[in-house]
């Protein structure tokens, strides 16, 4: 019963948008290049799937995200763990990290293009930069908040530093880490689209910018919808996978 109510409530606003869109096209006399009809968007979606362009664009963007995200996850988890366990490392790095984090990822793009060009590397570097900080900060937080009592148990049983990390710090930080990894993936996906919009010759962001210059609003909307849906799918997927790693977390909430 509750879930039905939830689904109905979630659908009301999208339905309203569709109705408004329909009415705007029918009675608003907007030019096709600015606001195309739903039918036209659907047709654009079909042709772009059929000729393989859309799939290709998505794959190019996704492969960039995977590369950058992988590097960012490793760097973020290692750096976050070190800073979380060592007070010295924290005092050394955290202030500067906090400052750098405030710079929006878009603001990095000009400098990255100057340094790495507009090829593959610059996209990957931008994704690494974007995903690194949420992963680092959340990992650090999870490691640092490990209760002193649990560490005392580790000392009682004379666990060496590495085992203490594996058996106490890491499992305690895991849920926090997963939050960071989830946020990082979302940010990475946004960053790749943004960087492709600004300077690229392939990828879904490039397709949008290309379609805009040709006044093809239908293709722009198709790309936007695809970006949104892929983002949601990735987020749900990663949530399910991570849930399997932390079975004890579910019990806590119950």
């Amino acid at each position, binding site marked *: 019963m509750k879930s039905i109510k939830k689904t109905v409530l979630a659908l009301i606003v999208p339905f309203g948008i569709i109705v408004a869109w329909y009415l705007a096209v029918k009675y608003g006399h907007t030019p096709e290049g600015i606001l195309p009809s739903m039918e036209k968007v659907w047709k654009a979606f079909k042709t772009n799937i059929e000729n393989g362009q859309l799939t290709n664009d998505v794959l190019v963007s996704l492969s960039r995200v995977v590369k950058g995200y992988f590097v960012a996850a490793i760097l973020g988890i290692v750096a976050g763990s070190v800073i979380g366990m060592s007070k010295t490392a924290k005092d050394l790095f955290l202030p500067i990290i906090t400052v750098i984090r405030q710079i929006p990822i878009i603001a990095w793009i000009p400098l990255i293009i100057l340094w790495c060009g507009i090829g593959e590397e610059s996209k990957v570097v931008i994704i690494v930069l974007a995903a690194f900080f949420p992963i680092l900060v959340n990992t650090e937080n999870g490691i640092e908040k490990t209760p002193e009592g649990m560490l005392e148990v580790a000392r009682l049983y004379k666990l060496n530093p590495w085992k203490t990390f594996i058996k106490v710090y890491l499992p305690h930080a895991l849920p926090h880490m997963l939050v960071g990894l989830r946020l990082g993936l979302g940010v990475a996906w946004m960053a790749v689209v943004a960087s492709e919009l600004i300077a690229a010759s392939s990828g879904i962001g490039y397709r949008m910018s290309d379609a805009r210059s040709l006044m093809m609003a239908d293709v722009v909307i198709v790309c936007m919808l695809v970006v949104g849906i892929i983002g949601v799918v990735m987020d749900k997927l990663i949530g399910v996978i991570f849930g399997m790693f*932390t079975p004890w977390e579910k019990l806590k909430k119950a």
Partner: protein
Amino acid sequence: MGETIKGQQNDQKKKTNMIKVDQECFMKGNDYIINVEHLHKQFLVDKKPMDVLSDINLSIKRGEFITIVGHSGCGKSTLLKIMCGLVDYEDGIVERNGHAVVGPGPKCGMVFQDHRLLPWLKIKDNVGFGLSALPKKEREESVRKHLEMVGLKGFENSYPAQLSGGMSQRAAIARGLANNPTILLLDEPFGALDALTRIQMQKEILRIQKEQSTTMVMVTHDIDEAIVLGNRIVVMSARPGKIMDIIKVSEAGRERNSEEFGRYKKKIYDYLFSEENNEMTYKDVSSDIDEIQKKKKNAS
């Protein structure tokens, strides 16, 4: 020349002293499993040293059950952690099995007030937490045996979040006993349990202690508990923590409804709540407040 001779003489002295100490240890080794002499401990509070424990002397025999009672903040938990090797001490002698305590050891288990089970490990892995050095089969055997001992058979694959407070505390006791320690230190292990569960757990810990003949030292703030469980009761005063008395409890006195039980209870009450002591703590607090005010004045 003169200096070297002096040095040699000093060395000679040290050696004879060491031999003496060794002999003492050997002699004590048979009777006393834990030996604390002239122990002092200070904590730094606002960069100023504060005495937590002052001149503690306590020798514990093999197989004895010692309970320690005192007001909160009297350093009884600190004393336990020093015996365990989790906390350093400034001055005095602390020995387990005739050797100075330098850190935690496998023959000395500890159970804390909050069960401190690791939420990400199943109960069997929590109980076997200190047994990673053992081969898998022996480890499983020890875990099975100790879970059965505390009445948690069938909960091997549960997570701590699925157990009640009493059951978690049983699991913590099983973990403390899993590597067959000769000493088990218990820091208010039943403090967070309801009254009925607590009495049941007291019975069980006594049964386990008799079965395993483990030496147990338990810190508690429950006077009844101290009398029911302890062969001897250590009564401590606060700030700095000092031993006021060590009361020997007769077997008959451990019965809750016996006359002797009442007498022990009154004696401990008198120690802990005598007016003299209350006055002392008030004085302590007022002088503390004076100092804080002075500090503030100086600062402004």
